[in-house]
């Protein structure tokens, strides 16, 4: 049985990776999961300098999902390169570094800094809804998506994944803009902007007022957008949004995703990634699928 997939020349042993921001750099999860099993680890977003993130409360549960407004707290690229990359190097998995920034220059700074590091791909976060500058502001306008992609591609030594926001009228416009800018791969969806109010205290549940919604609740929206995007561009698509089970992952693959990311599910099932890899193999066996590539985008 062949579960290998190819993303812009990078071969993953299977299509299951982690979603940025839900898995740290893998250290905390290595107590529960054999990282060698994963197709790739996508790290939490890293910026050129340390970021403090938002005030607490930063997370809130919602029906079948959750909201977060971490605000991209991260230790900065220097610590990341010294501490997190050497940790990940020990494992037989691909390393994808998620890059965030407040300005284009911030992003380019990190991209250049990672050029000579043992990093397989870069994922550019232009879709975080929880920061005032950067993030989603870059990801909701097609000209800006194309521009930032182009500039990053000029500097990047590794293949570039552009991570798109679902908070747009037409996801295909953004997908095509990333492709036009030279993106090697696109990944979607980042979180949907949501809100929760504490009616007893009559205040927002999150200090940031709004947060990014994730978890099984968002899956139908994510699947629809992945389907639309995969049918709009020629570059590979990484699908994510509420994937908790192998069945969920297979839905995304059938819809056109070459690989999938597991995010919020890690929070309530630390073994979710490996459970999903095992489940995909079971499904392939049960359906007589020899190569997972046979079913990528099979449902049209």
């Amino acid at each position, binding site marked *: 049985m062949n579960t290998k997939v190819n993303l812009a020349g990078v071969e993953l042993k299977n299509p299951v990776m982690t979603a940025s921001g839900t*898995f740290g750099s893998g250290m905390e999860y290595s107590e529960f999961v054999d990282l060698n099993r994963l197709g790739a680890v996508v790290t939490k977003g890293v910026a050129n300098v340390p970021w403090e993130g938002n005030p607490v409360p930063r997370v*809130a549960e919602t029906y079948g999902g*959750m909201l*977060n407004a971490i605000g991209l*707290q991260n230790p900065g690229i220097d610590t990341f390169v010294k501490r997190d990359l050497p940790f990940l190097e020990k494992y037989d998995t691909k390393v994808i570094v998620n890059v965030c920034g407040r300005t284009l220059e911030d992003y380019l700074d990190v991209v250049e800094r990672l050029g000579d590091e043992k990093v397989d791909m870069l994922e550019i976060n232009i879709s975080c809804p929880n920061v005032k500058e950067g993030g989603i502001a870059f990801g909701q306008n097609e000209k800006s998506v194309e521009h930032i992609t182009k500039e990053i591609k000029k500097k990047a030594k590794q293949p570039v994944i552009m991570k798109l926001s679902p908070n747009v009228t037409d996801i295909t416009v953004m997908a095509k803009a990333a492709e036009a800018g030279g993106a090697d791969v696109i990944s979607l969806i980042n979180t949907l902007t949501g809100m929760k109010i504490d009616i007893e205290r009559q205040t927002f549940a999150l200090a940031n007022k709004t947060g990014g919604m994730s978890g099984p609740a968002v899956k139908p929206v994510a699947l629809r957008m992945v389907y639309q995007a995969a049918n709009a561009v020629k570059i590979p698509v990484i699908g994510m949004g509420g994937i908790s089970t192998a069945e969920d992952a297979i839905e995304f693959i059938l819809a056109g995703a070459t690989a999938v990311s597991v995010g919020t599910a890690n929070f309530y099932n*630390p073994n979710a990634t490996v459970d999903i890899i095992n489940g995909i193999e079971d499904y392939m066996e049960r359906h007589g699928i020899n190569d997972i590539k046979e079913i990528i985008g099979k449902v049209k």
Partner: protein
Amino acid sequence: MSEKYKEIAEVICQEELSDGIFGMWIKTDKIATNAVPGQFVSLYCADGSKLLPRPISICEINAEKTALRLVYRVVGKGTKEFSSLRSMNKIEVLGPIGNGYTLKNNSAMLIAGGIGIPPMVELAKELKARGVNDITAVAGYRNNQLFLTEELEKYCKVYVATEDGSCGARGNVMDAIREYGLHAEVLYSCGPKPMLKAVSEFAAANNIEAQISLEERMACGIGACLGCVCKTKEKDSHSQVNNKRVCVDGPVFDYREVQL
């Protein structure tokens, strides 16, 4: 920080200790044998609409029977679900989580309010087992719906404060400390933020040690999501900013480390 285990535990028994406060003994595999006072566990709901684990503090540890006593207040749909569990029911648990208190040989005052009281029971038990003789507990309640005072009394002298004055000193734990003129060399505390602030000020004024246990909304409970941070006075070496994670760097902090 001890190793964490995710297990399906079996409920041994459950009772309502006072209005909305439940105590549940669960049989674990490895969690109980690895737990120390001040640590907590994550409990998972069976209902699929409530995904995130609930951090619940450990009230008592029976290492021999690999059992844990969890005492919690029903505050929402998740804890409501836990309170409906009966003997033989199963529940998913991850733990033990966090650092727990650092036990000292000096005279100890355990200061706790409301649902911060449960961890004090195991703490008092282990301090006593360690040979600390001078242990005092000050427990703050809303009203005469007390809980766990009998358990605490097995190991230490207990003073009570109630907001409505129906039992012990009227007011909060600090009022009780003043009223009864209590002293100790080390303070161990758990409870609402204003209480922890008062305890910190008391420690600073008396130039004594205080270990305070913080609470914050969490998602993963294992240090990855960065949901449950607290502000630190110095830059933290892990985060490279003035943030520490309550779940794994805490929940217990030296009061001088954190900004409340």
